[in-house]
């Protein structure tokens, strides 16, 4: 490269050079990158701690260049609460899947959010349990086939999929709740802004932020990566509308 060449896009410093274990086309990798880019741009890598869940992203600590804690299934918000309360000067983010956060961890996320823990919660919704091989999750859509609802999710049996961001926005305390998606470059660019703002709010000590990120799971949906992005667009977006459900500081930014 000659002297006036410039790098427009490269791996963020907060991300390691490790080839991830994620399946080809799984958008976990993109969400990791967006978090790492936010950490880099805010210059907080050296005082950031991530809390990894149990699920596909249990090995997240191999892909981030910052300290990490590994939480029991569903307990990341409680682990993060304990850490942040003793080290309010450090940046703490949790990274959880839908089974981890909504199913077993529903109590922990609701109370961490309601206490207004000054955390950045990244919540990946791919409508299925990935790591354990494609079982029904609380976010599995009606009629969606998984290994534990082989005839398609039957709402009479299991109730409706849970819209977590709307549920959380019923609480008074949380400061910033937004649902984004990473199934296309244009959506990824929006998602990056939201994730960055969530980290920014933590730096400004403003309160609890959660970003729900719609994500694909090609392997367990039984589709190619590109088909998965189409399936997400056609099936998940209608049920999980994107947008900001709560932003207590939106006016200030204008």
């Amino acid at each position: 490269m000659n002297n006036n060449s410039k790098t427009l896009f490269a791996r963020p410093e907060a991300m390691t050079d490790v080839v991830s274990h994620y399946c080809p086309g799984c958008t976990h990798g993109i969400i990791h990158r967006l978090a790492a880019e936010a950490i880099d741009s805010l210059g907080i890598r050296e005082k950031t701690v991530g809390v990894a869940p149990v699920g596909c992203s249990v090995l997240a600590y191999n892909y981030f260049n910052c300290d990490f804690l590994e939480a029991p299934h569903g307990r990341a918000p409680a682990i993060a609460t304990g850490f942040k309360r003793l080290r309010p000067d450090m940046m703490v983010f949790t990274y959880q899947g839908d089974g981890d956060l909504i199913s077993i961890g529903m109590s922990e996320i609701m109370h961490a959010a309601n206490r207004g823990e000054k955390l950045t919660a990244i919540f990946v919704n791919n409508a299925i349990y990935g790591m354990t091989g494609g079982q029904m999750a609380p976010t599995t859509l009606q009629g969606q086939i998984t290994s534990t609802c082989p005839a398609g999710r039957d709402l009479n049996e299991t109730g409706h999929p849970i819209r977590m961001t709307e549920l959380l926005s019923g609480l008074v305390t949380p400061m910033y709740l937004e649902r984004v998606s990473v199934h296309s470059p244009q959506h990824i660019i929006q998602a990056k802004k939201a994730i960055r703002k969530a980290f920014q709010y933590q730096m400004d000590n403003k309160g609890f932020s959660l970003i729900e990120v719609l994500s694909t799971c090609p392997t367990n949906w039984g589709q190619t990566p590109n088909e998965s992005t189409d399936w997400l667009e056609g099936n998940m977006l209608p049920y999980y509308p994107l947008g900001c459900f709560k932003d207590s500081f939106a006016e200030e930014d204008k």
Partner: protein
Amino acid sequence: MTKVLMKGNEAIAEAAIKAGANNYFCYPITPQTEVAEYLAKRMPEVGGVFLQGESELAVANMIFGAAATGKRVFTTSSSPGISLMQEAISYMAGAELPCVIVNIMRGGPGLGGILPAQSDYFQSVKGGGHGDYRLLVLAPSSVQEAVDLMILSFDLADKYRNPVMMIGDGMIGQMMEPVEFPDKIESPDLPPKDWAITGAKGRKPQVVRSLFLDPYKLENSSWHLHEKYELMKKNEVRFEKYKVTDKNEIIIISYGTMARICQTAIDAVEAEGISVGLFRPISLFPFPQDEIYAEAIKKNIKEVLVIEMSTGQMVEDVERAVVGKKKVSFFGRTGGVVPSPEEVITQIKDMIRKKSKSKKKA
């Protein structure tokens, strides 16, 4: 420092602060909620962290997160609450995180009752969670000893990088006794906490975790934990003897407040010419196995009598220690019923009478 009349729960709370553990997460449960009420006022005075979580399960995970900072942290609960904490305790043992957990025991199982009992012995000593791990378990029999063991627990937790549990029946928490706090606490030289999560500044990132997908790595980790527990067995056995002489006909093995009740009984029968000794384990893990064996095999000892406020749990460890050399019998009340000294005296006399009758027959 002057003596202060204090309730056990509050003394335990103050002891933790004296040990520099001004980080406390809790959930209300009888009979130990006064610890939380005391610290709700006291922690702000010492600039500490106080937080009431949404469940003991969440609280135990908050302890995990807090312990990862390297600072001293503790929680207190009671039997059903301690059951909810077992998952996080197993994770902390696996991730080698130091912390102190106090169980002011109540009657079980299930919702059980709220009166004192010792029916959580197995849960604490044999490991209530999953995997190859143990907890160092200490059992005070007075409010003063609860204070001393609380302070010691934090040193042991840091020394072995392992959760330490202090268990006392409800009376330890509820009764008031004069207690003295040490002015200055010189902690022994403890290993540096370079494992603590402080941010990857000037060093490679660190991870606190207990996951080892590679079986050989998990096995290594488990044997490493095992070595720590062997070290505990070597260095951390604690017990106390009361009126143990070579005239004893019976040796009683009992811990916690149950042991104090036995002391009253021992004094009473002594006046009637019956010599009984008491061996009181203070560390339940590591269990004073060799020391109990040494007492039991003495020629003057005709029988070992284990007395607990449960249907018999520690008795199994005593049997293991005595390896059949002497008859081990058990007496216990549970569910919150606390045996009176008279009941213990009756037990002793029945044994002596049975012994003398069998001698006549032989």
